[in-house]
């Protein structure tokens, strides 16, 4: 018997040096085969191709000072406009002395959201009412009236316009979407047919055609002496659009609830609305969280479409600056990059939060 293979000292021998530690990790994750090795080198090449020039362009050889595009003389990015134009990117043509109203609206959003999302906060009884009142407070702050100077909605612009259109769409589309999803499952044929027609029609056409309807046709539908604000019309259409998608997401959640739950509700003698509110919807909404959040993100991104009908959101402001004679040809990439970063930060953090929420709720269920 070959005793060298048996270790009687009581300790097991350490694993080979090339399977543990950094070396082991590199071997396993980067060079575990010919294809893998090729991919590693290929990625390194790509990174080398992208990162240094990008850093050089955005930071190291960029211009940060100047008053017009001609002042940017280096090869890199031209960030000189940031100083004078960032306010327009954020607030559009909103009067500068009223910026605090926008800021306050956004600041108040956080407690309003927190009271909806979390249960165990102090003063939660009042907090709930605050959340309910928030849309009205926001509208009051932004538009004015009742003591505040009135500001017409055509002054809204920049990223603030995206936020206003997106948030109002999000707040309104969820309840409408829930009603539509319930309508689609209803036993009453008229309600079911109407819901299905509405959902499928809205999902079948692009948002831009609905925005055309909002801008061109909606005025024809209304009595001659009534006129709706342009922004309100757009918000109505964005909300309807998002609620059709929301309805489909929630329908998926409703279908995942076993029949026993519906029957249990009936057996308890609950009315339709009671069993929906207490039994079915809490479970269905929990399942549909990823879909709901994705719809929110999609809706928020879709708010950029307002530039096609002549409103100046952050993308519109970027275009305005790009076609400004002072800056023409100098700020194309820079302005897009800034707008993209704004959207990326918000959408990416929402999606990360939803993954987090999903995980948390999932452990609760087990």
């Amino acid at each position: 018997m070959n005793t060298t293979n048996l270790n009687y000292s009581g300790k097991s021998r350490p694993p080979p040096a090339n399977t543990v530690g950094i070396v082991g990790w590199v071997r396993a994750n980067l060079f575990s085969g010919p294809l893998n090795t090729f991919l590693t080198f290929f990625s390194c090449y790509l990174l080398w191709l992208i990162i240094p020039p990008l850093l050089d362009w955005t930071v190291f050889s960029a211009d940060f000072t100047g008053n017009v595009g001609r002042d940017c003389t280096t090869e890199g990015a031209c960030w000189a406009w940031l100083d004078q134009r960032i306010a327009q990117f954020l607030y559009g043509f909103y009067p500068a002395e009223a910026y605090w109203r926008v800021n306050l609206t956004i600041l108040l959003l956080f407690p309003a959201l927190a009271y909806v999302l979390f249960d165990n906060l102090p003063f939660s009884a009042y907090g709930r009412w605050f959340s309910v009142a928030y849309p009205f407070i926001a509208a009051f702050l932004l538009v004015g009236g009742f003591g505040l100077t009135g500001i017409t909605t055509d002054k809204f612009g920049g990223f603030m316009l995206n936020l206003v259109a997106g948030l109002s769409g999000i707040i309104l589309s969820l309840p409408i979407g829930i009603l539509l999803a319930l309508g689609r499952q209803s036993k009453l044929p008229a309600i079911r047919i109407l819901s299905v027609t509405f959902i499928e029609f809205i999902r079948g056409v692009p948002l831009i055609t609905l925005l055309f309807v909002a801008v061109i046709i909606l005025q024809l539908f209304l009595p001659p002496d009534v006129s709706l604000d342009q922004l309100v019309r757009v918000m109505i259409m964005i909300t309807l659009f998002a609620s059709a998608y929301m309805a489909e997401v929630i329908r998926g959640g409703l279908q995942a609830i076993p029949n026993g739950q519906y029957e249990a509700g009936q057996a308890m003698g609950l009315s339709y609305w009671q069993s929906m509110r207490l039994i079915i919807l809490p479970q269905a909404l929990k399942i549909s969280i990823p879909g709901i959040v994705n719809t929110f993100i999609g809706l928020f991104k879709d708010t950029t479409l307002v530039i096609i009908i002549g409103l100046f959101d952050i993308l519109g402001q970027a275009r305005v600056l790009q076609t400004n004679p002072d800056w023409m040809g100098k700020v194309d990439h820079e302005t897009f990059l800034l707008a993209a970063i704004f959207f990326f930060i918000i959408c990416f953090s929402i999606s990360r939060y939803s993954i987090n929420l999903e995980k948390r709720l999932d452990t609760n269920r087990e």
Partner: protein
Amino acid sequence: MARNGKQTQSKAFRLINLWTDERSRGLIFQFALVLGLFIFIAFIVSNTIQNLKTAGMASGYDFIFDTASFDINQRLIEYSSTSTYGRAIIVGGLNTIVVAIFGIFASTVIGFIAGILRLSSNFLISRLVSVYVEFIRNVPVLLQIIFWWVILLALPKVRQSLSIGDSIFLNNRGVRLPSPIFEDGSLLVLSAFIIGILLSLGIKIWSKRRQELTGETLPVGIISIILIVVLPVLIYKLSGQPIGLETPVRGKFNLRGGFNVTPEFVALWLALSTYTAAFISEIVRSGILSVSTGQKEAARALGLKQNITMKKIVLPQALRVIIPPLTSQYLNLTKNSSLAVAIGYQDIVSIGDTVLNQSGRVLEVISIFMVFYLTLSLITSAFMNWYNKKIKLVER
């Protein structure tokens, strides 16, 4: 109590019974809804008629026979500024379909590659692809479309065109590609190509039947390549190379020959396909992850090779999960192509917008948009449902 009361009173008709009885309540509810809807529609129609009358706007679809008198730079069918509005709208519809088909093709290819790479055990490449997916997914597609367009317009002027291998030229008027020239005998090559495809399909079906009976397999892949690629190339060489390429040549002021793809098309296509591909890659990734590892282990236990495991075990099961969301991505891409109006690619919305401004028939033009997109949606989802059913059958 209530139930007893209801039973004793059931003979004597009472108005309240209509509300307490579930069926009649449902009927009342639906009746009220339909009535309300009719009143609402009547309200809208009467307002519209009145508004149209006061604005002095004409209505009706007869405008599609009027002369359009504007030009379209990308057209698949014959069109000139003397053609009718109707024809202009058809040209626009075809342009939408073209960009959608090219976009669907590219986004599927990029999306599948990215989805598989994201699952790769290679740390570097999977992170790199994640960055691409997350960044593209979280930035509005309209921004990306305009971004690519601005980049393409910033390319050098025609006289300083960038060239790739002296056959493809890039400039601020688009991309100039070599165009194929068909001479006599090219029909032979094309038919050889089509026959090759049909033959290899036939062989595939036959070999499958044979495999089910005898268990023997044929190298179908190699035979197909020979039939589809080698055979037409052979005929091409033998018949004296009847299909040529006309490469663009630098002239004094302009490029001659070849055909030009507009920057609008390229920008729209690039943005739509990379954007949709990011979503498709997520779908592919979750589809592959949804196949349980037991399936792969079972295949390995049976001694199947890696690529056969992927092809015969993992992908067929993953596809069942992938197809339904993939369909909605294709539909999204088609609908997103309407954003072309922002950069002036002449799709149906963009041309329709011009028609709408010239003719003033707002209701009619927008109804044409909606019917067009609804039809496209229905056709795409019908096709994908058929395909979905087909793979479901294969699986059992």
